[in-house]
């Protein structure tokens, strides 16, 4: 295989070559700070986020009254409902107040009556919207959304590993572990359970086929390992599908990623960092997340990986130029991608800002995530890749 002749070895290394490891340490520091902050937050608040009434249970009433004095209304009602939150609905086109939204954990009948008494008119479909979520349901929602995010992250890691790793036997083992994890996390959905079992069976068959053509000793060892993982997976699946095992599965997967495909590990770490840092910022500014807000994190998983895949592809698969050239070329492409996403989300956010709290929360979180993605892709991920390629002499 012809290696691209670089002129780099004959020149002094530029400042990037000298200092990229320091950049990596800086971004690692950011990640560490975010993790510590979140840990602290969890200890004092009991959870990693502030939740709004759609996740704790409660009532949200939107009233389309252009003339209501929001501050006075809030103060009066807070006597009876101390946790009441109230904010205005504004329309960027007319520039005026369209109404207000209030939220409280109290029951819908009590809230509605109190509000009607204050306003002096009945709340009907022609002047208001009322949303109510029961406490049990909303807490159930929250649990499921967390499970969904874990499952999505598992699946995303799996796809990334399949793309960038080479050892087919390990791909089969990883598939079995990932789907075991997905089945544990989403154990109540029978479709997913069936799909997972199917995937596990397909991977063992694939693994056995792929290992056929090596020498006898290696082949038997490979068979043993594959069958071992297969049997353990099925046993766990049927006998002991507990969430606690998820930690073990993650540990095994991370070990496999680091040992067999550092590029995959770098991508996944970068996506993880995006989510963690965005979460820290969201908590720091005191945002109360709704169902939509938690789902925005799910969306972030998909978006943050695109630029990492671009970076890794260009660095590993392209043959022209040296690493720094490829890196800079990938950066130009990737930053354009992120800028267009930021522009589109930013414009949408600005236009619906005072009008739709749901869209506002989704777009804000995605925007913050995209901004962090710039650092996590082009510093964290890029530095790790460059280090890896230097060590493996792939330059």
């Amino acid at each position, binding site marked *: 295989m012809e290696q691209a002749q670089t002129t780099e070895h004959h020149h002094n290394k530029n400042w990037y070559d000298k200092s990229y490891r320091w950049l990596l340490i800086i971004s690692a520091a950011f990640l560490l700070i975010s993790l510590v902050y979140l840990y602290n937050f969890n200890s004092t608040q009991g959870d990693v986020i502030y939740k709004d009434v759609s996740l704790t249970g409660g009532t949200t009433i939107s009233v*389309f009254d252009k003339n209501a004095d929001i501050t006075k209304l809030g103060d009066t009602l807070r006597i009876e409902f101390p946790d009441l939150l109230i904010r205005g609905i504004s*329309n960027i*086109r007319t520039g005026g107040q*369209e*109404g207000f939204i209030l939220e409280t954990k109290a029951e*819908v009948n009590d809230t509605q009556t109190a509000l009607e008494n204050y306003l002096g008119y009945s709340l009907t*479909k*022609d*002047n208001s*919207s*009322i*949303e*109510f*979520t029961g406490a049990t*349901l909303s807490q*159930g*929602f929250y*649990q*499921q*959304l967390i*499970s*969904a*995010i874990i499952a999505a992250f598992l*699946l995303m890691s799996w*796809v990334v590993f399949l793309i960038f790793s080479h050892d087919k036997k390990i791909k089969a083992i990883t598939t079995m572990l990932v789907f075991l994890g997905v089945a544990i996390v*989403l154990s*109540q*959905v029978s479709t*997913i359970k069936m799909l997972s079992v199917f995937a596990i069976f397909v991977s063992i068959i694939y693994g056995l086929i792929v290992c056929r053509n090596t020498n006898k000793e290696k082949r038997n060892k490979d068979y043993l390992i594959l069958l071992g993982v297969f049997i353990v997976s099925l046993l766990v699946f049927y006998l002991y599908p507990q969430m606690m095992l998820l930690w073990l599965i993650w540990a095994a997967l991370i070990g496999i990623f680091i040992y067999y495909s550092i590029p995959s590990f770098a991508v996944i770490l970068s996506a993880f960092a995006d989510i963690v840092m965005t979460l820290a910022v969201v908590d720091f500014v005191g945002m109360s997340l709704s169902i*939509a807000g938690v*789902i925005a994190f799910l*969306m972030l998983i*998909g*978006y943050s*990986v695109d630029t990492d*895949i*671009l970076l890794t*592809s260009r660095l590993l698969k*392209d043959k*022209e130029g040296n690493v720094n050239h490829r890196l800079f*070329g990938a950066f130009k*492409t990737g930053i*354009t*991608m992120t800028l*267009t*996403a930021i*522009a*589109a*989300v*930013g*414009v*949408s956010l600005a*236009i*619906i800002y005072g*009008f*739709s709290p*749901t*869209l506002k929360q989704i*777009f804000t979180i*995605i925007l913050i995530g995209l901004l962090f993605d710039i650092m996590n892709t082009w510093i964290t991920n890029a530095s790790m890749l460059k280090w890896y390629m230097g060590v493996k002499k792939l330059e």
Partner: protein
Amino acid sequence: MLHRMKISWRVWLLIGVLILSLLAISPSFQQGVLIKSVDKTSDYFASGVRAGEIIKQINGENIANVGQYSQVIDNLFNESKEVKIEIKTNKGDYIVLTNSTPEFSVDKVPMTRIQMGLDLIGGARALVQPEANITDSEMNDLVEVARNRFNVYGLSDVNIRVVNDLTGEKYMLVEIAGASPEDLKGLVAQQGKFEGKIANKTVFEGGEKDISDVCRNDAQCSGIRSCQADQSGGYVCQFQFAVYLTQAAAEKHAAATGNLSLDSSGQYLSDKLDLYVDDSLVESLAISVDLKGRATTQISIQGSGSGKTQEEAVKAAKEDMKKLQTILITGSLPYKLKIAKLDTISPILGDEFINLILIAAIGSIVAVGLIVLVRYRKLKASLALLFTSFSEIIIILGIAALVKWNLDLPSIAGILATIGTGVDQQIVILDEARKGIQSSLKEKMKRALFIIVSAYFTSMVAMLPLFWAGAGLFRGFAFTTLIGITAGVLISRPAFSDMIRAIEEKIA
């Protein structure tokens, strides 16, 4: 010299799919008011008026929208006497002589075939859970009974489905778009066990076993009878309607009244007919003395509704009456239901919301276009890119219209998000094409394709859990995103790479 740009098959495919999508959306600009449903027992149905027709004129006056319609109807029927009403629709002319206001529901004529979600046109959404653990087939039965109850009430535009969430809990998701009763709670969650008792013995229950017919829509045997002001400054209105018992129930009535004595006035029996709904007493009716011991098949049910103004009281009384009539006809739901979530969404800001979303979409596309132009400084490539993005949105909307997908808030968020990320793959293609190096254009496209397909699978996999998480309330986002990226990878982006190839080759 004019170069003719050869249009490859991929670009033709894109154009073809675009045209199909536009057809699926079928935008139209008709004036008038759409009839959504007609009560089959009404005079109007008898004259031939049917759901789906568009009212153009009433008594010679042009009707352009729902506001005008309401005004004209109010003016015609403000006294309760018989009126001749001439309705001209897009399908025909109908003349009806009646004294009851049109018993059909109307809405504005939809501009497109896209099904708008509750968040845009208003409506009600309820997540209801039976208080017992029931099987899947029992759940389906419950859905059928609930749907029947809504239809009898007069609501046909109801979406009910069973929802399984990630914890294995089963819910019934009820969505009613557009106009819906003020008190959806009563219709949905009330089990609706109706019992008429005399001296604590059940004489008849709601449902077809005891009730052979209920008078509705006939002013002679059902309606609002009177209204007065009450002490607290509001108003109360009384309603009354006739109920026809089966022979068996009538005989039970005879047996129950046969042994009663008279009360102090001598005109009524000592015990009253107590009406219970879901085990709470809603009304007690005095029984006239000449019904003692008689197997009467017709009885009269009375009740009342109140409000702060007379109009509100009339409305409340009408709704109560309709609810009672409904549960008398359909009987009770098989299980006690608990409302886990109830949203009533006003249509008021819906139109404005649509305006803002359109502005946001156009603004985003323009912002993206500017960035692309600054980066590449090639007008043709930028225009091709914008065209591709725009066509992806049209394709998503077309498919949504085709499968009658409800375009709710999460769906719209998905479309808006696609604008920003949809161009990513075009950018990868553009950059790959620009690299002035040895590989052929074909190889460059192959490399771009690798990146694109990888990103596609990771996005797809991240979206999948949304179909179940949170009772699937946000699956709209996954749907529009998945359609967007699939249509992108299969249709619009290959077409774009062909367009780029044509542009580059012309320059080369």
